């Protein structure tokens, strides 16, 4: 990936073919068709079109960086060729679908998809349009790359945020209507998406703000850095009070449905915080993490259930510490056998543990105790002063309390001696042991605290759903939690929250995302590891480490440099 001084046609053709195969794939697996139902900008852009042309824009962006230096027009031509070549595979699919029934093999190549690919026109006309738009998109991607960085960053920010607002417009417009009435909402949102003019205004506004921040951000930061500690503490305190205030009134802003989504996000974030200690701090990749979630949930179910399987019938609050205690015990018990294991073997063994627990929960062996596939039913909701927290807006505070506790514990531990020990173990076990760190205690403590958070999450989950089934505790939950901490940034507390909001919140809000949830997680895991292994919101320590590496040696992976920066 170095600059070639000659015009080389193979490069844009290769990039175009990659983009074309990606476009063909997202069409063939049904993403384009399904996503086309969601409008981003009314009458102009649907999510399906975005996903179809995204690869072309990105590869156009990438190919332009490989054009001969100092010649802007070759970069643009590269981008144009990339876009045009990228349109070939989808066009072939369209032609193929004319000749015979592709759908008997590929279930998602529906007539609707073909209409989308040809923009509702006849074949020759539609295909010309497809090629034209692809070329323009490739050209635009290349053009973006050729702009100076001071323009490119704000424009990317503006594009990204406008699209995110467009994506969430159904929910946002509904909320806006509740608070400001339909007149104001109608100015911004038309139908179920952003209006065109509103989208343009938003784009320019965000771009302008991002541009100004890019110019002035450093001076603001340095002014903050020059303040004396008292002032800084006061600002920090103010921000904290503001943050807590927002968190407290949040359910009123969100309404019932969004509060429910928020509760799910927070339960996953709680698990993420636990796994963050195990994987992010101590570097022990645990793929059977869902086991502790299941243990917490089943304990809560058995201890509080009013149904036939309930054993104690005690209240949520009395059962919660017991659930956490049992999870901790389980964490230590499963932790002991794997203490001597490293890296990848640990991952597989914990995966095995998780599966064993799930199969046992399903089996007839334990059916008399935990109900087999029928699960545990009639679990009461938590009660406060005799009020049952049935509404999600109220249950939110229970989850929030759990999260705040977990964040506080994680934060204090990460700064404490044990946190440093974990990080030492993560970096190099042998060296850590040589420095006098007791490996056994350190690792077991990580497992125990991780399990405690998961157990708490499971307990809350059980009483939120009021019934639990073994099918809720499969490997995919572990993968979900792992993905969210990797996307957020391993070892970073805000990263966990951000990761949970994006990876759990989005699929809950957007039905069509749920369908392709694990496909996207898979892509995200790979892309993150290739392009941004520290996550979107890396912890300070990680960021510093990577910075040192950059100073010492040029980056080893050119992908890191080529990937679009999205912060």
């Amino acid at each position, binding site marked *: 990936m170095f600059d070639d001084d000659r015009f080389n046609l193979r490069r844009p053709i290769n990039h175009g073919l990659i983009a074309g195969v990606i476009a063909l*794939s997202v069409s*063939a*697996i*049904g*993403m384009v068709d399904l996503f086309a139902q969601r409008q981003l900008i009314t009458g102009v852009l649907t999510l399906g079109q975005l996903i179809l042309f995204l690869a072309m824009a990105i590869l156009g962006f990438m190919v332009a960086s490989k054009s001969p230096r100092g010649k802007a027009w070759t970069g643009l031509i590269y981008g144009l060729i990339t876009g045009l070549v990228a349109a070939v595979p989808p066009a072939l699919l369209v032609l193929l679908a004319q000749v015979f029934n592709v759908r008997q*093999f*590929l*279930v*998602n190549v529906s007539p609707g998809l073909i209409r989308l690919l040809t923009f509702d026109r006849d074949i020759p006309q539609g295909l010309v349009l497809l090629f034209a738009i692809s070329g323009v998109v490739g050209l635009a991607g290349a053009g973006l790359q050729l702009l100076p960085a001071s323009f490119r960053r704000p424009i990317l920010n503006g594009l990204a945020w406008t699209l995110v607002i467009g994506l969430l417009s159904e929910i946002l417009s509904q909320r806006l209507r509740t608070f400001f009435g339909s007149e104001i909402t109608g100015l911004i949102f038309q139908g179920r998406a952003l209006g065109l003019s509103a989208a343009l205004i938003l784009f320019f506004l965000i771009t302008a703000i991002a541009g100004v921040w890019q110019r002035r951000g450093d001076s603001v930061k340095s002014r903050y850095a020059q303040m004396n500690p008292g002032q800084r503490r006061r600002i920090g305190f103010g921000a904290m009070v503001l943050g807590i205030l927002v968190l407290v009134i949040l359910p009123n802003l969100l309404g019932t449905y969004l509060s429910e989504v928020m509760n799910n996000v927070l339960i996953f974030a709680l698990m993420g915080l636990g796994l963050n200690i195990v994987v992010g701090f101590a*570097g022990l*990749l645990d*793929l059977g993490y869902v086991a502790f979630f299941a243990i917490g949930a089943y304990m809560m179910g058995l201890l509080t259930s009013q149904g036939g399987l309930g054993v104690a019938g005690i209240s949520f609050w009395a059962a919660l510490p017991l659930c956490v205690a049992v999870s901790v015990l389980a964490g230590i018990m499963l932790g*002991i*056998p*794997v*203490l*001597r*294991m*490293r*890296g*990848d*073997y640990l*991952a*597989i*063994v914990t*995966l*095995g*543990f998780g*599966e*064993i627990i799930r*199969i*046992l929960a*399903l*089996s*007839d*062996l334990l059916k008399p105790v935990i109900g087999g596939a029928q699960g545990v039913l009639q679990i009461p909701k938590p009660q406060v002063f005799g009020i049952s927290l049935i509404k999600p807006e109220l249950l939110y505070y229970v989850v929030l309390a759990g999260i705040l506790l977990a964040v506080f514990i994680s934060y204090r531990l990460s700064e404490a001696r044990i946190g440093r020990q974990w990080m030492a173990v993560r970096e190099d076990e042998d060296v850590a042991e040589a420095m006098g760190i007791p490996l*056994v205690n350190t690792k077991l403590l990580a497992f125990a605290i991780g399990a405690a958070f998961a157990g708490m999450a499971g307990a809350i989950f059980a009483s939120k759903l009021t019934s639990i089934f073994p099918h809720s505790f499969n490997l995919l939950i572990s*993968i979900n939690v*792992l993905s969210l901490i*990797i996307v957020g940034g391993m070892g970073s507390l805000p990263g966990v929250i951000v990761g949970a909001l994006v990876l759990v919140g989005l699929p809950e809000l957007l039905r069509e995302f749920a369908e*392709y949830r*694990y*496909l996207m*997680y*898979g*892509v*995200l*895991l*790979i892309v993150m*590891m*290739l392009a941004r*292994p520290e996550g979107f919101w890396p912890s300070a320590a990680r960021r510093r480490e990577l910075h040192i590496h950059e100073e010492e040696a040029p980056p*080893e*992976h050119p*992908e890191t440099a080529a990937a679009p920066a999205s912060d």
Partner: protein
Amino acid sequence: MQIPAVRERLQNIDFIDLILWIFRAVIILLVVWGTIAAIIDNPYSTSQWINFIVFGIAQGSMYALIAIGYTLVYGVLFMINFAHGEFFMSGILTATVFLAGPMAASGFMERQPVISLLIILIVSMLVSIAVALVTERVAYRPLRKAPRLVPLITAIGASFFWQYFFRGLYGSQSIPFPQIQALQGSFSLLGTQILKTQVLVVVVTIIVLIGLNFFIMRTKTGKAIRAVAEDKDVAALMGIDVDRTIAITFATGASMAGVAAVLYAVVFRQVQFFMGFIPGIKAFTAAVLGGIGSVPGAAVGGLFLGMFESVGPALFLQGLGIPAAHQLKDVIAFTMLVLVLIFRPQGIVGERLGEKKA
């Protein structure tokens, strides 16, 4: 063993060792107890036991073929290719949708069962290889120098990506693999009935394993694979294209998985996007059981796991009085996985896994 060594070991026993020993003893006790109870009780006839064993051998042959992919990749890269189960799935799923279904519908499969099975086999292998090569190029090659957990995470990502990719392509329902008349029925051998499909599985596995052995031991490419497994830098100095050799290794493993997948489809007659996951993990168990990194080990481990899994529920779980013991078949496999990784990570055959590679 010398006396001082024993004494030293006794002094060094700590709390963790003690717990692990107790753990080991409990498992052995349970297995022995269950086995004795089952033998005394003897709920099955001899021919039923033989059937269990034959089924175990057939099942184990498939595990062995899949396990070779894990072992070869681990041999050259020291990474667990978590997505290997998806290589297994992708080939047969594609071949079933595009070939087996239409061929059965047109009656070609009835007329020419051998040719159609061969075509399916080749297509299944080719698709598996293609998926493996794409995965290697995109998700593994750029990260070869990264910390060990990083390629494992991308492998997990690749695994889920392929599963849901093929789910999107062919739908989530399970697709029937057509019945082949020529393979119906059974042979009678020593008074027990042995299914023709099981014989086919074992025969094909033996042929493929012999071919693989020839490929690895006798051809120049095989020699390159072994050299790269030994030492990548030195192999590169000897003029071996390391990247290409690693890609070939992936392709070899994937083609074995493609063969195993066809056998799987012939025996179980159903394919689905999720079908690769559990066999993948079990085959990994088999690879570890036989000593990961060793090709004969993978074969031995596969057979061993298959037998254990098919005889185990009847032999020692039922003896313990566990209801519906066959539900816990997978528990046996996963318990084996956990036990082997904890107590004997070098496996049964386990020779060449030094500290450096562990």
